[in-house]
């Protein structure tokens, strides 16, 4: 029985061959999965693609532009035609991802199916989809952009993302190894060993599922050398091995980003390794050959064929032609014969023999050689040379140089002291030479990492072997398999004037697909060099940039460790069905069911609101008045103990920064309150001034926001309620007046601060209670006020009441351009002070005039509430302001707004046009006062 017949004898895994010495599959553990809904079998250790190839599948996707069938090219992570959808996860690298039981794998970028791809009509029209096609075609007319978008989306590659996908589990880790070795082939393993032997703590990172690099699919001698290296690494104790992990880049200070994918129950983990020294040992990437038909399924690299044969025991075809320019090609031919695949012909490029084109309908059936002869086959293996993946060296500042003798780019001499290179990226040699170079490089890395002398280490030389320069045959073919760019496209782009490699790349998108240049960069450079009549060295190469492999956003985000803040009264809020609202880091009650009723409770009786998120800064020291006088626009040098004052803060650009009240609690002791959202910013602002500008001022600032639970007791009956729970403070209006502060005992809790201020416009007391007693005081107040109809209110009711009172909220009623004048607080700004933050700009603002004003607007139709951010427009539709706050006022029974308007509109009684989001206009009048409710403030001062 011939080999071909034996291989195709109809077994379920018809391309699986007998056991290979280095195979990574476990034949005792069969695994079942599905491919496009059909059941397939595999062994543990199979990748998705190796399992499918074993079952006889040859086509795994359709190409990006022309929807040509694509099969295996590299059989590695970077295989451009082997991205598949796994369950709801798109763009899975099928030649890398291991098969697991029950996996549902489907082809992506095919419509309606892999076999019958409607979009492959593009192929017929292929000559119209040249370089820059998208730039040239989908530009005009502009009104068709939405249509273009739909067309392009249909043809865009990539799988489907499901909105219902469960959140993956992602993690981060910080590591501080002495040496990181990027690449776990023979040189990388030896480098790790050399570094460990010299006393360094080493992290050895390998992209594939096990250590060994090319030794894994090599000869028996190479397998024996690998076994020895593995044994040594395992025995070392100082080497942490991360497999299925990739160094994605190097950043300032040798900060090495490592994407780790091999952890159970963790989708991806980003390891941030601050390495003292990094050793780049990425090996070499085999280069495809450019000729007509080079993307047909069945045309693959020699390393792909050897990987399939020797790692997964899969015959890559039944009848092979091998184009060989090096030992790897020769070894592949030998491996194929050994595995029972008929090698019809070896085309020796070293003797000038050539492959001109490959033909086949859907997959390879015939190869045409340079002498015009044709060989029928279903496998064409090419071994035409190597690319050095110099990413790590590039990002460390090194520029690779072209070595004409070796026909590849090699490292330049621009490496910093904390980056070394070893292995194939440096040069070629037998395993022993690579290991020797790696070990010495590792020792040198350790010497540098441990800041030792290091002169004792001599690194043996390792240089690239001579290799014929083979880039393109005399026909044109695909250069970028991810982006479907042919050498013809590159030549015509060069003719159009895109003759610099960086320009050509951006214009044609060559090297910009999922493979990111690993396979196609050098061929792109070579084709451009040919088209422009320059040498490759003159043409130069593009710069490799991180990340080396795709990194999910989840890995960058890591675990969610952002704190969530709750007040001590949160259990009560939850028990009483508060609707929560997210306010920065805080979760607060927005309301307890009916904000309008909550407003009435406060206006008629007494209500409690949890205002714990209010910023609270404890200020102590003799220079606090000077500090306050500088931070606020108003005057602070004279504030009696027991009094509080409202202040407005502006930045040095005069823009409103924050507001709040500060109370004088005792000698050299103040308590500042800030807005809830501004608490951290104001604390930093204060630190900045104290540390950088006024270092001689004696002030201590301590953030106290979460040390106190804060409660505002508001309403006409609030004094009555307070009198029931406060024993040691005289609450009479004469003794404790509006804008005063007292310290005392509330519900038997000593050390409380209470001040008479109010955002709601009612008689009110703001209480700051030691946080641990917050819930107790809250509940005690409610119990004490039961017969007073005491209730609670949330943020929404407070916002309504402050709007009724015309009190601004910084950053809602102001924006990043709103300076101090014009927000209704002009009288507060004291330009006669010698200095304060923002004074200069405020002076100039006043001189300049022309700024917007904050006004209250009353829509003519009292039932219309213009949504916040509605624009105020003139007759000719130019924008002259916007609504910053708007609500229906339960107290007034009508809609009310605050708005920032151009100065000519800021006149009482002025009628303005408000443009609503639904396209209609309504009229509104500028009110005399910002406050619509109790403008005189009698209730506040009661």
């Amino acid at each position: 029985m011939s080999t071909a017949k034996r291989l195709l004898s109809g077994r379920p895994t018809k391309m699986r061959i007998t056991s290979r010495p280095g195979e990574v599959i476990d034949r005792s553990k069969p695994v079942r999965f599905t491919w496009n809904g059909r059941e397939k079998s595999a062994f543990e250790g199979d990748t998705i693609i190796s399992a499918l190839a074993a079952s006889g599948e040859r086509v795994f996707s359709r190409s990006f532009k022309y929807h040509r069938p694509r099969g295996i090219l590299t059989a590695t992570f970077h295989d451009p035609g082997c991205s598949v959808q796994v369950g709801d996860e798109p763009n899975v690298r099928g030649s890398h991802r291991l098969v697991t039981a029950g996996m549902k794998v489907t082809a992506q970028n095919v419509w309606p199916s892999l076999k019958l791809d409607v979009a492959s009509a593009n192929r017929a029209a292929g000559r119209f989809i040249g370089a820059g096609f998208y730039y040239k075609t989908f530009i005009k007319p502009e009104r068709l952009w939405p249509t273009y978008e739909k067309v392009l989306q249909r043809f865009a590659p990539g799988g489907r993302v499901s909105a219902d996908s469960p959140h993956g589990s992602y993690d981060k880790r910080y590591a501080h190894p002495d040496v990181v070795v990027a690449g776990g082939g023979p040189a990388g393993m030896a480098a790790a060993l050399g570094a460990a032997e010299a006393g360094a703590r080493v992290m050895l990172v390998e992209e594939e599922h096990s250590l060994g690099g090319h030794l894994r699919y090599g000869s028996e001698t190479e397998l024996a050398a690998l076994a020895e290296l593995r044994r040594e690494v395992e025995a070392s104790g100082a080497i942490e091995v991360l497999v299925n992990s990739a160094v994605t880049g190097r950043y300032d200070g040798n900060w090495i980003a490592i994407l780790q994918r091999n952890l159970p129950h963790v989708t991806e983990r980003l390891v941030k390794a601050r390495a003292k020294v990094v050793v780049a040992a990425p090996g070499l990437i085999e280069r495809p050959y450019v000729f007509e038909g080079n993307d047909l399924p069945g045309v693959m690299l020699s390393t792909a064929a050897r990987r399939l044969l020797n790692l997964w025991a899969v015959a890559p075809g039944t009848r092979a032609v091998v184009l060989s320019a090096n030992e790897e090609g020769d070894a592949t031919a030998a491996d194929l014969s050994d595995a029972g695949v008929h090698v019809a012909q070896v085309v020796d490029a070293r003797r000038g023999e050539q492959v001109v084109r490959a033909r086949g309908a859907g997959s390879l059936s015939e190869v045409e050689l340079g002498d015009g002869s044709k060989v029928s086959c279903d496998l064409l293996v090419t071994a035409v040379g190597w690319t050095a993946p110099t990413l790590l060296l590039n990002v460390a500042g090194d520029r690779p140089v072209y070595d004409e003798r070796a026909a590849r780019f090699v490292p330049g001499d621009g490496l910093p002291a904390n980056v070394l290179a070893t292995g194939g990226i440096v040069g070629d040699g037998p395993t022993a030479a690579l290991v020797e170079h790696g070990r010495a490089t590792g020792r040198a890395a350790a010497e540098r990492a441990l800041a030792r002398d290091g002169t004792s280490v001599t690194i043996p030389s390792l240089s690239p072997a001579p290799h014929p320069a083979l880039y393109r045959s005399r026909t044109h073919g695909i250069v970028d398999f991810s982006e479907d760019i042919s050498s013809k496209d590159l030549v015509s782009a060069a003719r159009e004037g895109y003759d610099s490699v960086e320009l050509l790349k951006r214009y044609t998108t060559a090297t910009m697909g999922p493979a990111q240049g690993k396979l196609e960069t050098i061929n792109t450079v070579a084709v451009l060099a040919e088209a422009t009549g320059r040498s490759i060295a003159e043409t130069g190469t593009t710069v490799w940039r991180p990340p080396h492999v795709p990194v999910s956003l989840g890995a960058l985000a890591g675990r969610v460790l952002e704190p969530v803040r709750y007040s001590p009264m949160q259990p009560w809020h939850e028990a009483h069905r508060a609707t929560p609202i997210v306010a920065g880091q805080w979760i607060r009650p927005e309301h307890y069911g009916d904000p309008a009723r909550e407003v009435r409770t406060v206006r008629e009786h007494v209500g409690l609101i949890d205002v714990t998120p209010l910023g609270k800064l404890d200020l102590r020291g003799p220079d606090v008045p000077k500090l306050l006088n500088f931070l606020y626009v108003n005057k602070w040098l004279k504030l009696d103990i027991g009094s509080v004052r409202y202040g407005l803060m502006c930045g040095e650009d005069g823009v409103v920064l924050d507001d709040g009240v500060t109370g004088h609690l005792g000698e050299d002791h103040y308590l500042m309150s800030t807005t809830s959202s501004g608490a951290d910013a104001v604390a930093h602002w204060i630190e900045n001034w104290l540390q950088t500008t006024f270092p001689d001022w004696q002030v201590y600032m301590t953030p106290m926001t979460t040390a106190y639970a804060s409660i505002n007791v508001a309403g006409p009956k609030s004094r009555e309620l307070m009198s029931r729970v406060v024993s040691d403070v005289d609450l009479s209006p004469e003794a404790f007046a509006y804008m005063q502060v007292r310290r005392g005992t509330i519900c038997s809790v000593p050390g409380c601060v209470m001040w008479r201020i109010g955002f709601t416009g009612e008689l009110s007391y703001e209480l700051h209670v030691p946080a641990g007693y917050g819930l107790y005081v809250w509940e005690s107040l409610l119990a004490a006020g039961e017969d007073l109809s005491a209730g609670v209110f949330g943020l929404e009711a407070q916002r309504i009441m402050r709007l009724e009172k015309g009190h601004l909220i910084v950053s809602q009623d102001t924006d990043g351009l709103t300076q101090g004048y014009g927000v209704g607080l002009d009288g507060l700004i004291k330009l006669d002070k010698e200095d304060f933050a923002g004074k200069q700009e405020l002076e100039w603002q006043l001189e300049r005039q022309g700024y917007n004003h904050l006004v209250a607007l009353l829509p003519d139709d009292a039932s219309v509430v213009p949504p916040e951010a509605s624009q105020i427009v003139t007759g000719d539709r130019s924008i002259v302001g916007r609504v910053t706050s708007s609500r229906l006022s339960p107290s007034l029974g009508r809609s009310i707004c605050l708005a920032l308007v151009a100065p000519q509109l800021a006149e009482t009684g002025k009628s303005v046009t408000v443009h609503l989001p639904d396209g209609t206009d309504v009229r509104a009048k500028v009110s005399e006062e910002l406050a619509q409710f109790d403008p005189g403030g009698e209730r506040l001062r009661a």
Partner: protein
Amino acid sequence: MILIPCPHCGDRNSSEFTYAGEVHSRPSPGDARQGPWRDYLYGKDNPAGWTEERWFHGSGCGKYLRAERHTVTNEIRATRPEVGAGASSRTRP
């Protein structure tokens, strides 16, 4: 990620710090003209080379510090406390 030698805490990732800009002195109040003031607010020398800048170690000691950083290489050759600048400095070996 840049490693910043905090004079109080030692080498720390720059993610613990907030960049506070080039060191600019505040024009003296009262006689500031618009040119110098706007320069103080918005003007940046932004040299391709050594520059002195402030960093705030918010996730560490809470102190402002001054760093001499090379904007091309991100090398930091010296840092010192902002308060009492000059009293002690920390230099990379």
